[in-house]
Structures are given as structure tokens and as C-alpha cells.
């Protein structure tokens, strides 16, 4: 039951893009076409979950026992950068088809603040999913990370669909491109606010 609450809250209620404002750059940057949006969402899903697993273990077994939590920011970003590189190398060898599908999106993910953001949220914020506020354990963290990433993919794919339709309409000259995209995103965020009473 608790996992279900985590999943619904991370995907709909606290959607990472539309209510927490993480990962906006790729959200605006690669949402012109539905196919690239799907590719990017896949890559982000994969990296967020993996990065959360590694940074969680790093925090619990290295940083906390040694009392060097202040190195969190530096340590996490290095781990994420190294991880993205490693994922690239491994994928190239093991699954060339997936590698070419994700292609250019993988290196971009290092500077996607959703990845570092989720890694930091998981180890610093207390959650209360229906019960006492507590820090997440490993399984909860992974469920949270994966569902956040699914929420990211959902917002991205919906938004790409809207933008593909927008491209066919006549938009006032000054609004072309990013401004109209931002305004549509605002309306989408309003729609997602409807979920806020859910959990």
C-alpha cells in the first residue's frame, strides 16, 4: 500500500517537471518530436534509477559513517558523471540497439538536474506516505526514483504530443518557439494540479 502511495504521489501529485521544476532544460529542449521525447525519457528513467541506487549506498555506507556529508554535492555529481560514462560504454558493448536508440541523450543526462535532484532528495528529505515522517530506505528510494522517472517520461511524452500539434498551428510571431511552449506547459501544470488532493 505504501509503495502505491509513493508511486502515485511521485508520478502525478508531485510530478518532477510540472510541480518540482527539475529537468526543465531537456523538457523544453527535446520535446519537439514525440520519438526523441520517448528516447530521452527512456534514458532518464534508466539513469535516475541507477544513480539513486549508487548515491544512496554511497551516502549510507561512505559519507555518513565518515561524517563527510558536506562532500555530498561534489561526490554525487562525480558519481553521476562517471556512471553515465560507464552506462554508455556498457550499453555500447551489450546492447548496441538500445545504445543507438538512446544515442545523443545519454551524455546530456549528466547535467540534467532531475538526476542530481532526485539523488539529493532521497537522502536529505523526510517523507510521510500515510504514516510517520521518515527517511526512505533503499527499496522505497528505488521505487521513488523509478516512479519519479516515469512521471518525467509521462510529462515529456504528453508535452511532445502537444508541441507536435502546436507546430501545425499559426502562432503569433513573438510567441513562436519557447514562449508558447512555456505557456502550454503552464496550462499542463494547471491540469496536473487537479491530482493534488489524491494523496
Amino acid at each position, binding site marked *: 500500500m505504501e509503495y502505491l502511495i509513493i508511486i502515485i504521489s511521485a508520478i502525478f501529485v508531485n510530478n518532477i517537471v510540472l510541480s518540482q521544476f527539475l529537468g526543465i*532544460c531537456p523538457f523544453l529542449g527535446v520535446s519537439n518530436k514525440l520519438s526523441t521525447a520517448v528516447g530521452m525519457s527512456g534514458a532518464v528513467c534508466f539513469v535516475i534509477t541507477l544513480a539513486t541506487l549508487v548515491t544512496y549506498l554511497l551516502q549510507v555506507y561512505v559519507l555518513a559513517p565518515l561524517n563527510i556529508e*558536506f*562532500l555530498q554535492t*561534489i561526490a554525487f555529481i562525480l558519481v553521476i*558523471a562517471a556512471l553515465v560514462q560507464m552506462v554508455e560504454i556498457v550499453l555500447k558493448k551489450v546492447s548496441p540497439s538500445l545504445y543507438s536508440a538512446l544515442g545523443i541523450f545519454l551524455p546530456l543526462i549528466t*547535467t540534467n538536474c532531475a538526476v542530481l535532484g532526485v539523488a539529493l532528495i532521497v537522502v536529505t528529505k523526510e517523507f510521510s506516505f500515510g504514516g510517520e515522517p521518515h527517511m526512505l530506505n533503499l527499496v522505497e528510494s528505488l521505487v521513488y526514483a523509478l516512479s519519479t522517472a516515469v512521471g518525467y517520461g509521462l510529462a515529456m511524452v504528453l508535452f511532445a504530443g502537444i508541441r507536435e500539434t502546436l507546430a501545425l498551428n499559426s502562432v503569433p510571431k513573438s510567441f513562436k518557439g519557447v514562449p508558447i511552449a512555456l505557456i502550454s506547459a*503552464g496550462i499542463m501544470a494547471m491540469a496536473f494540479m487537479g491530482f493534488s488532493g489524491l494523496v
Partner: protein
Amino acid sequence: MSKLKYTVNGILKDNPTFVLLLGMCPTLATTSSAINGMSMGLATLFVLVLSNIAISAVAKFIPDKVRIPSYIVIIATFVTLLQFLMQAFLPSIYETLGLFIPLIVVNCIVLGRAEAFANKHTVLESACDGIGIGLGFTIALTVLGLVRELLGNLSAFGWKPVEGDGILVFILAPGAFLVLGYLIVLFKKLTGNN
């Protein structure tokens, strides 16, 4: 005097928010009021100037292949420094901005300036560029925060001359997207670059 043009460029021609459209996450997330927007802008300015100076000074010694990771480590160092300073002297602002202070590390403005400007210019020029871009970002965030605060709460910088409620949605998430969208259009019209 000639160095001053880098600073002015950063505010108008290369405004990171309205023209380059970089660093959108903190722009949208921390501008629920003018004060918050300004604090976030100044925090980014601090990191940007220091990292620009440091990177332009050491760029010659960094092998080309490892330059991006090296820049990230330099930036992360200054962000950690900023976290310490803010925890010590401005704990309430640090609490409000929360997650978005460590996330300055992955703010594309900072890395973008390192890669596009600091590694091919002198220390002084890079410092001027950092100040300009940082100020441009701060001004943009303050304006965005001010508009949202005015519409959403009928107040400016926490000063509330009239009683009553504003249109709440402008302080919430959707308002951030809407106001930024319209402000970009306005900036384009005013500066005439379409």
C-alpha cells in the same frame, strides 16, 4: 572600459534567462517571490564569478579530454563553499531555496560560460563576463519573482500595501511557466531581437 562591454552584454544581449534560455529549473522554481528570486540570482552570481575566474586561470593546464569533468569539480567546490557560507550567515534563505543551492552545480549557465567564454579569455574578462551574466540572471529572476508576487499575493519584496488575496495560481507551479512565457515575449519586443 572595454571590459565593461562584457558585463553589459551579459545583461542585455546574452541575457541567460530571456535570450539564451538557460538555467530554467531555478528560474521557475525559486521565483515565488521577488526576494527569493533575487537570492537565487545572487547565489548563482557568486558561483559564476568565482568559477569563471578559476577556470580562466587554470584552463591552459587542463587537457582537452578531461575538461568538462574538471570544470564540474571546480564548480562543485565553489557550490559547496557557498552552501557553507549560506548555512552560517543566511540560514533562513538557505532553508527556503533548499535543493536548488546544491543544484547550481548542474545549472547550464555556469558550465556554459566556462565552456563558451572563460576557457578562451583572460581572468579579468571572465570575471566581467561572470558579473554580467550573473546580474542578467539576477535581474531576470527578480523581475519574474516580482510579477508573480504582485499578481499572486498583491505584495512587492514582502511589502504589502493593500489588503486582500491575489490570484493564487501565479505563486503556484503553473504561474511560473505562464509568467516566464509572457516575459520572454515582452523582452523580445522591448529589445527588438526576434
